[in-house]
Each structure stands twice: as structure tokens, then as C-alpha cells.
């Protein structure tokens, strides 16, 4: 087994673990803003890891250069899309989730 395949397997497994964390976070967290906090960053990092592993497996060819272009585009586009959605929710008037007991404890 070549050294490229081993590096590819390690990177792809790390990326899939990050994407699994993002999916669990979008299912379990209590609020829209915390859900967007969970899914945006971890999904971007997971996609970057997986496609970096595919670049290592592919080598320096035309498809490898296009994969690097996909990495650059995802790293720019995915946080911008989630940020636009969260800003539209804030302008629409969606209230963030506060922990009431912690706020009362802070006052008294």
C-alpha cells in the first residue's frame, strides 16, 4: 500500500468525523443561532479535510487542480451563505435563546 493511500484514508476519516459532529449538532442544539454555529464551521472543516485527502490520492493532474479550486470555493462560500441566513433571521426578528436561570442568578 502506497504512502499516498494511507494519507488519503487518514484525511478522509478525520473529515467524516467532523461532518458527523455537524449533523449531530444540527439535530441536538436548542436554537437557530446555535445550530448555525454548529453546522457552518464543522461542515466547512470536514469538507476541506475530505477533499484534501482526495487531492493527495489524485496527485498533480488536471482533476487535482480542479479539486483545489473546489476547496478554495467552499472555504469562501459556505461561511458566507450561513452568515447571510443568520443575518436575515436577525433582521426578521428571531430572538436568540437565553438561559433564564443563569440570567436571574446573575441579577441577584
Amino acid at each position: 500500500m502506497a504512502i499516498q493511500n494511507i494519507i488519503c484514508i487518514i484525511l478522509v476519516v478525520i473529515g467524516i468525523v467532523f461532518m458527523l459532529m455537524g449533523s449531530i449538532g444540527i439535530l441536538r442544539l436548542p436554537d437557530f443561532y446555535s445550530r448555525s454555529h454548529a453546522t457552518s464551521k464543522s461542515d466547512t472543516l470536514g469538507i476541506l479535510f475530505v477533499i484534501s485527502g482526495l487531492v493527495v490520492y489524485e496527485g498533480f493532474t488536471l482533476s487535482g487542480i480542479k479539486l483545489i479550486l473546489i476547496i478554495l470555493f467552499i472555504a469562501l462560500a459556505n461561511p458566507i451563505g450561513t452568515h447571510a441566513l443568520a443575518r436575515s433571521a436577525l433582521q426578521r426578528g428571531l430572538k436568540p435563546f437565553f438561559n433564564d436561570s443563569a440570567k436571574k442568578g446573575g441579577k441577584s
Partner: protein
Amino acid sequence: MHTFFLLSAIVLTIIIAVPLVRVLKGPTVFDRLLATNAIATKTIVLICIIGYLYGRIDMFIDITLAYAILGFVGSLVIAKYVISSKVVRD
């Protein structure tokens, strides 16, 4: 290596199916849009791995680029539409 790509494609399909629960029972419309956006960004990686499974990555990589650009533009347009829309309720 083919077996590894097949296994990772199966696991990735299960991961993609998880936010569908949030699409179905989200309290507001923004939760549904966020879950749809998450599904669209993970599908990009799935299309790349399917390209390696079929052995034709030179064709599937162009499909991936087009899908990524269309998903990004669609997400921005919907986020701009939802602000000033009277039709969509919370």
C-alpha cells in the same frame, strides 16, 4: 481503495440523511433552510467520492463545480428573499 471509497460513501449517505429530521420538524423557516444548506454542502463531497467509485473523476468534477456554485447562489437568493417577504411566516 475501492472498498474504502464505497464504505465512506455509505457512511456519508447516513450523515446526509440526519438533517432531514430538522427539515421536517424545524420550528421556524430558518431552521429548515439551514438544514437544507447543510445537506447541499455535504452532497458536494458525496458526488466527488461517487466519481472515484465509477472511475470517471474527470467528468464528475465538473458536475461538482456546477452544483457548488448553484447551491451557493440559491442559498444567498433565499436568504435575501426571506427578509422582505410577506408570504413566509415564522
